[in-house]
Structures are given as structure tokens and as C-alpha cells.
């Protein structure tokens, strides 16, 4: 589904991908690697209003728990039910099968405030990238 090159990224390593009026969200490949084996993903319910930067989920790995901060504002319209059965999808396929949820965005232009793929790759080279996740 989401191509890494077409995504926008938050400094906390979530991606958002706009596609035909909805925005899919998940965590980056770097983030899943840092999390190590994911064993539970706690997602917001369909219908919940989320805000950009708002904590709205938890990822539990064997090693630790990680907050998920929404990289987009809007209403949750779908969640990835497959993650309940197979949370390791986040590790195996962070951009395709391991997406978290979909949002009807309040403002499609909002994601322009986030990093594009090239900027995110540069960000990963800086010490600031390696604190939160």
C-alpha cells in the first residue's frame, strides 16, 4: 500500500500516506527495528478524533513499550485488525501489511509540515533521531 518514498514522517518515526481522501498511518522501518519484536499493538477505535502529535496508541515489544503519536489530525475510519492476530506484521512489513489505522484527514495539507522521505533519511543520520523510539 504505502510506498516509503511517498510518505511523510514525524520526528517520532510515524509515517502518514495520503491516498484518495484517506490517510494511512504506521511506523517507519527504522522504528520497527528499534522496537524489536512487536507482541501487541493497542490502536484507537474507529470514530475517534485524533490530532497530529497526539498519543493514541501503544506498541508493546518484548523489550519495551512505545507510544504511538498520530502523524495526522482527523477521524479514525479503519484500523488494521490483522495486527491483533499477527502483531509481528509491524516488523515484517511496516509500510504495507503492518499499517496501524486510516484517518479521514481534517486538512490534507497538514502533512506538509512533516518531513518527506529524503528529509527523514537525513534526519535519521542526526543524533536527534535516536532518542524517542
Amino acid at each position, binding site marked *: 500500500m504505502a510506498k516509503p518514498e511517498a510518505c511523510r514522517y514525524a520526528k517520532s518515526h510515524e509515517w502518514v500516506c495520503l491516498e484518495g481522501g484517506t490517510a494511512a498511518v504506521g511506523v517507519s522501518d527504522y522504528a520497527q*527495528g528499534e522496537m*524489536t*519484536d512487536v*507482541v*501487541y499493538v493497542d490502536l484507537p477505535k474507529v470514530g475517534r478524533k485524533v490530532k497530529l502529535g497526539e498519543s493514541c496508541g*501503544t506498541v*508493546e*515489544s*518484548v*523489550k*519495551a*513499550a512505545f507510544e504511538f503519536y498520530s502523524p495526522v489530525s482527523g477521524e479514525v475510519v479503519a484500523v488494521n485488525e490483522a495486527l491483533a492476530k499477527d502483531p*509481528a506484521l509491524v*516488523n515484517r512489513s511496516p509500510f504495507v501489511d503492518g499499517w496501524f489505522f486510516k484517518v479521514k484527514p481534517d486538512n490534507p495539507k497538514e502533512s506538509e509540515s512533516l518531513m518527506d522521505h529524503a528529509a527523514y533519511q537525513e534526519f535519521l543520520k542526526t*543524533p536527534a533521531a535516536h532518542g524517542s523510539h
Partner: protein
Amino acid sequence: MSTTTLRRTPIYESHKRLGAKLVDFHGWELPVQYEGILKEHQAVRQRCGLFDVSHMGQVFVEGKDSLAFLQKVNTNDIGRLVPGKAVYSHLPNGRGGVVDDVIVSCLGPGRYLVVVNAATADKDFAWFQSQAKGMDVRLANESDRYGMIAVQGPKALGLVAADYPAVGGMKRFCALELEVFGRKSFITTTGYTGEDGCEFIVPSDIAGRVWDDLLAKGRSCGTAPCGLGCRDTLRLEAGYLLYGQDIDDEHDSIEAGYGWVVKFEKGDFIGRSGYLEHRDKGVTRRMTGVRLLDKGVPRPGSAVFTGEKKLGTLTSATFSPTLGVGIGMGYMEGAAVPPGTKLSVELYGRRLQAEAVALPFYKKK
């Protein structure tokens, strides 16, 4: 960020080559995982895993009074060790706690090897020196001279026995002095995973070679390099204590549920009277196993409740790959909490349903 230089084991270059994720563990730069904690955990439970445990310390004890000295500083009965045998033991501090948990091997008459934890190696050695005053004992902290590799899992002894046939016939808790690549080394049938296996103690300069050799030969039986991540999930499933977390200078062996390592009949030892009191009058807190009934992963420090009453906190906790649920253990205050008792565990402000279970969580079939 810390600017302290991390210590590296003699196997560091192999870890880099294998693409390990390295972390700071008590000042040592060690692999937390290579391919993934769950895969490595499974490799050890089903086949074989290799662990670099070179950070652990080795103290050699020799001299006419070596047995008397070891009897004094240990809870377990070192007098029962004949050459070639090993035992798990606690070092009581005489103040109701434990200096460290160790494995003592008898190498020969009056010759012993004590394997100590990395973070406590210097503390242990200083403690040994202070307790050996006036005794005919030579203590040598040779932690920097040796590397250590744990080979663990149902296929471990078979793999090692291919090159070291004597290991094939060794029962658990035996110790062998032998030559590895022509150098004086030791193999003990010990470990920290709940599986069969052994640990190599070899001179540092050949440790990398031993590691590479075991891994190359072990690949055909599914041997995987394993990091600290699965070392923790494996040992917690097996109910093993982590010194500094589950047991320390403030908690003794009986409170920790390890009364079996305290042998009163052997005679006097440091802290014996305190242990006797705990044995005869009982303890007011004890290590208790907890299994989550809800989804979630408890963490060290999570509070445990019965109803609204807080019983204690978990000292170790994680996701159990074998059971597929969150598990933990910690000291619960008051009367013993029988297995099956409904509990709850506080995690990020929420209460998750849990129950008390008997330790260990996992026993090898």
C-alpha cells in the same frame, strides 16, 4: 548521552560481522539481539543458541583453607563438591541480603572456580578478600583473562561433544578442565536458560575463534547467535533470578524462593542466624510468579494488587515467548499468595487482570 567508553568482549568483532544490535549492559557493549528476540528465544528452546557471556567474572580460589573459606562465604554446601562438580550458590552479606549469586566449580583438591556476575565482579572480589583475612587462601580475579560462551538448547551438548567427546557424557552441573585450541580452558554444564547446555571459559585471545567455530559447526543443527534480549526472556521463564533486580543486598535467598541453596547442616556461614530465623519464623515478603490474563506486557516496577490492596511490585517482567502471555515475578508482602489467586498489574495507569502462578513458568520436558 554517556561519554564513558564501553568495554568490549573478545567476541565483539564477530558480533559486528553478524549485524548484532549492541547495547550498554552495565558498562559492556553487548548484543541485545541479532535477528530478533523471539527467533533467538525459539532457537534455544528448540535447537541451540550461542551467547557471549564474556562479561561475567572468574575468580579462582586455591590454598589449604580454600574449602573452609568457600563454606564461610556461600550458602550452599561446597563441601559436597568433588572435583568435576559444580553448584549454584548465594553469597550472603550477613545483613539479610546477598552479595551475589554464583556458580562454584571444584577443579581439583583445594582448587575452585567461582563464576560471578559482571556488574558485581569487583565488589565480590573485594568481599572475598575481606573475608579471607587470616586464612591460607589465594584469590585470583582473572575476569579479564577469560572469555565465556554459553551453548544452550536441546542440541547444545551434541554440538559441543562432536569436538569435545567428554562433554557428551556430562550431567548438569559438572565441570571439566580441558584444552581448547591447545589452551587451558574449562567447560561447565551450566546455563541461564532452563535448557541443557554448557558454558566455555576460554582464554580471551581464543574466545572469538571458539565462537566462530561453534557457530559455523552449529549452523547445520539450527544454532543461532543469541543476545541479551532472549537471555532475559529465557531465564525469567525458567524462574532464574537476575542479581541486582530480583535479589540484592536487601533481599535474601529464602525471601527469593531459593531456600534450597541454603544448607544449614553444613555448619556455620555468614548470615546463618538470619537465615535460620527466616526458616523458622517465616518471611514477610516472598518472590511470587504472576501471569497476565489480559493482553499486555508487564515491566519491572509494575505494581501488583489484590483488589485495591497493593501487594508489591514486579522485579522482573516481560512477554513470555513460550507461553504467549505477559509474565513477571516480584516480592509480595504478607502471607504467601497461592497459585490461582486473582491479581491485577498496573501498567501505564491501567489495571490488567492477572493471576498468581507457581515458579518457574517453564520447565524443560
